[in-house]
């Protein structure tokens, strides 16, 4: 079996973690990959912890289970660090990305002695600067694309501009803000 990139998202209902996982599936699909993007199946409630998943592969994906040993974990809401075991099963040679104003060294004590790489990004700051509102999913999407080297950054930005043009055809004024959020995030994830 060829290698499948497995990613797990932790967020709260309403923050767009599921949407971000579907967007990641979209961009990977557009680079010719086989993809899966799916939420943890259950009734979603605003503010409740939710999980979403991605598989990305060069060959057809047949498995239809949740992901238990991801290579990457993305935490969209840092308050989950004290209530959800976000590093459960996370591979040591992988990485975790946390949305927080803290540095990676400051976050590490909350990660159950996780030994792999830790990245942080202040999605609120970026989103407010770029869009004037707090939508964490664009910064988190850009972060995982960069950290997991899902695709070339320039190709990613071009791809996203194309999909925004389609998605926001009726409100083109938001395209530039979203593009700015992605560009800033590629720089700021550390």
């Amino acid at each position, binding site marked *: 079996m060829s290698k499948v990139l497995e990613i797990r998202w932790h967020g709260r209902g309403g923050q767009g973690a599921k949407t971000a996982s579907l967007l990641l599936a979209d961009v990977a*699909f557009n680079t010719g990959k086989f993809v*899966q993007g799916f*939420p943890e*199946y259950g009734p979603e409630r605003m503010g409740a912890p939710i999980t979403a998943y991605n598989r990305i592969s060069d060959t057809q994906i047949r*498995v*239809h*289970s*949740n992901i*238990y040993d991801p290579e990457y974990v993305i935490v969209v809401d840092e308050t989950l660090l004290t209530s959800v075991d976000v590093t459960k099963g996370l591979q040591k040679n992988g990485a975790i990305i946390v949305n927080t104003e803290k540095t990676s060294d400051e976050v590490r004590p909350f990660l159950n002695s996780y030994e792999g790489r830790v990245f942080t990004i202040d999605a609120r700051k970026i989103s407010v600067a770029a869009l004037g509102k707090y939508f964490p999913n664009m910064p988190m999407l850009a972060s995982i694309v960069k950290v997991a080297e899902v695709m070339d950054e320039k190709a990613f930005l071009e791809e996203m501009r194309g999909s925004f043009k389609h998605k926001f055809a009726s409100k083109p004024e938001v395209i530039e803000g979203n593009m700015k959020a992605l560009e800033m995030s590629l720089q700021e994830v550390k």
Partner: protein
Amino acid sequence: MSIRERLSGNEAVAIAMRQINPDVMPAFPITPSTEIPQYFSSFVANGLVDTEFVTVESEHSAMSAAIGAEAAGARTLTATSSCGLALMWEELYVAASNRLPIALALVNRALSGPININADHSDSMGARDSGWIQIYSENNQEAYDNFVQAYRIAEHADVRLPIMICQDGFITSHAVENINLLEDDIVKNFVGEYEPENYLLNNKTSMAVGPYATPAFYMEAKRAQSQGMNNAKQVILDVAKEFKTISGREYGLFEEYKLDDAETAIVILSSAAGTAKDAIDKLRSEGKKVGLLKIRVFRPFPAEEIAQALKNCKAIAVMDRSEGFNSQGGPVCAEVKSGLYNIDEKPLVVNYVYGLGGRDVKVESIEEVYAALDKIVADKTVGEGYRYLSIRE
């Protein structure tokens, strides 16, 4: 030219429906099938289809409206899940016994209680003897392909029965995956126009639909209905053959995966079959002779063909994603066992109830089943024949 896309299972089925452009769709929303009428109603609103979309007040009414429309001569479809199918129960029998080739997109979900919105097969398994053709899909591609083939089977003069195309709730209905779509005109040509022989809106020939049958006639009516189901097997194979010419994708009554030389095998339906294939590849790389039989067509049940395909195995596990409540096994196992009864050389059979109410099926869960089959082969006896997978006792 196929179209490379990424879609959820629900969206894939909705697109097949758009390409078919049926005459009538009565529907009532229920998780996890809600997106199907939701997508489809947007196609109606945007003028992509000229279907009459009927917003009914319950699933009982959805199936009643479907029966009325289909009897009138309109190609009709609907979608539902779980308790929605349960509420259609009475009408399912009316649709089948009146030989109305309605298509239903069923997104499998557990029946209550406890209340649960996740995948299992208790809804469609409960309806297995209602006279509907049942076809199960492993992923979004199969859900789409099976739906494209549905009317060719259901409307065939030798069959004339309603058909439900099943896929697993959330697991495939809400997962976005790669898919190859067919072009609109290719699907339209394949499905063709609906030209019913008898229909209520035909003012040249009067007819009655749903009349009373006294004991002098009832049994013959049921016998004729049963013959339609018997005939469906060959029609399903013929339609699949033709479908291959437009898609390149092959379908049968069931799929065999590495079954030829398998010593142990599992029999399973729908999404968990994909997970099982990964488990098989892993075990094969360790030298284990393991295989899979994935049932695609559960009604009509291809008993003889399945028995032939499994006869050389030493032991098999039949996987049921619904509880039987009969203290001896689930519905899939009962059918497979009765199919095996009439052949001389047959494998030992163990039944597993698994995945109820969305209990996740991992590659490791399937590996456990093969390990148990190894033990059954070594012991030359099944032991407990009615087991549960991944359960806390």
